[in-house]
């Protein structure tokens, strides 16, 4: 019998946890992967998980503070990802993976991907970017397999990753120029768009994430 995959959705008062948890459970069900999803802020549960999902909504600084507010939670996250547990950050959850955020002052991020989270300029366009935008893939990757033609993700944001190393990017989207939409470094990945709200495109990415065996571990910056 296949072991049930344990998926930890991190609860740090940073977002729509129920939606992310429901979508992960549905992706597992649709792809026939036995799994159980827990919404948790317990460090031991994070360390023991097979997959970690970090949702996020609102401001970078608030989310970063939320992550540090539960004793031991951030350390557990660092330990688990260092040990190779696949990680997916969603929206501000992805942004937290960067070196720093510039929303409401400068705040340190997890430093798993190079670059910083800065306001988008997109002259002449509405702000925030709200709605469906096409994903342009920069290289093939197990997380982006099977998405069909012209896949779109649902975006809601006015800050975005900039000055990241090109090899970090899996996909960009066009909003007054290329905007990072999906990133990956070893076993840690993130989507700027809401996979949990991107219909079958999002469910496929989540299913890919559950089936993913990263080849290289994360290179955590100093």
């Amino acid at each position, binding site marked *: 019998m296949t072991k049930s995959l344990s998926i930890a959705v991190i609860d740090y008062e940073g977002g*729509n946890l*129920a*939606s992310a948890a*429901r*979508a992960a459970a*549905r992706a597992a069900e*649709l*792809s*026939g992967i036995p799994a159980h999803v827990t919404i948790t802020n317990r460090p031991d549960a994070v360390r023991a998980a097979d997959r970690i999902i970090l949702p996020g*909504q*609102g*401001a970078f600084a608030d989310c970063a503070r939320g992550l540090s507010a539960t004793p031991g939670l951030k350390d557990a996250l660092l330990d688990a990802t260092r040990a190779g547990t696949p990680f997916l950050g969603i929206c501000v959850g992805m942004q937290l993976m960067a070196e720093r955020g510039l929303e409401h002052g400068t705040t340190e991020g997890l430093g798993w991907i190079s670059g910083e989270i800065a306001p988008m300029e997109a002259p002449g*366009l*509405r*702000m*925030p*970017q*709200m*709605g*469906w*935008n*096409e994903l342009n893939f920069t290289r093939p990757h197990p997380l982006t*397999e*099977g998405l*069909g*033609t*012209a*896949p*779109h993700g*649902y*975006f*809601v*944001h*006015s800050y975005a990753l900039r000055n990241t190393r090109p090899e970090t990017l899996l996909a960009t989207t*066009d*909003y007054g120029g290329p905007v990072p939409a999906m990133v990956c470094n070893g076993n840690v990945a993130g989507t700027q768009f*809401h996979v*949990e*709200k*991107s*219909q*079958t*495109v*999002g*469910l*496929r990415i989540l*299913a890919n994430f559950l*089936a993913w065996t990263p080849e290289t571990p994360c290179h955590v910056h100093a």
Partner: protein
Amino acid sequence: MLKLRVIPCLDVKNGRVVKGVNFVELRDAGDPVEQAALYDAAGADELTFLDITASHENRDTILDVVSRTAERIFLPLTVGGGVRTTDDMRRLLLAGADKCAMNSAAVSRPELINEAARKFGSQCVVVGVDARQSSTGKWEVYTHGGRTPTGRDVIDWCQEVAERGAGEILLTSMDRDGTRSGFDLSLLKAATQAVRLPIVASGGVGELKHFVEGAEAGATGLLAASVFHFGQFTVSQVKSALAEAGLPVRPTPSPFQAKSRT
């Protein structure tokens, strides 16, 4: 390129759809969840529930509807109607709503917008603005379903809600609502020029060309209720009309394919 959003809106009262045709596909046409699932499959870009439950005792019926919807479909869901406090918002967001639309409560206490944006982030704060023309190029904000004039200028109010941290404006022309004579295009133009926020146009759609006109006037979301519920148009007909006019739309996504396992 960001796509226009075609947004069917369902009026929900005591947990049931108010206007709704008996589509043959549905077991229960009055169940908002069934209707939502149908729109999800039909390529809707978002959904909006407008809760028009009057009695206080039945206010929680919408929470059950939202929660059952969020279990089944993975599409952004906005819920409006009766949102008075950040606690109301919290309950809706926890049930699975992605955005909450506040209207009368924001007019009577504008600080609610700031509080909501601070607590949950601007991305889930929608301010519903009900507008009635007062003179040429001027519109007045109304509340309580278009019954109560407030003396506020619509364009000033749109700018104020943007400054207070709203993430989106749902702009309804009370003059056009129910007339099927098209969106109030001068209202849309004035509002979309005055603020940088995305604006969802609502009120007055009766023909396919009205969607095109609304988009050309600057709206990035196009909301309609009865033309969809009564089966006059499908979402995909609307998208085809927009695409033919050279406007950006999202193709209907393909169903989930389980990967063949190797």
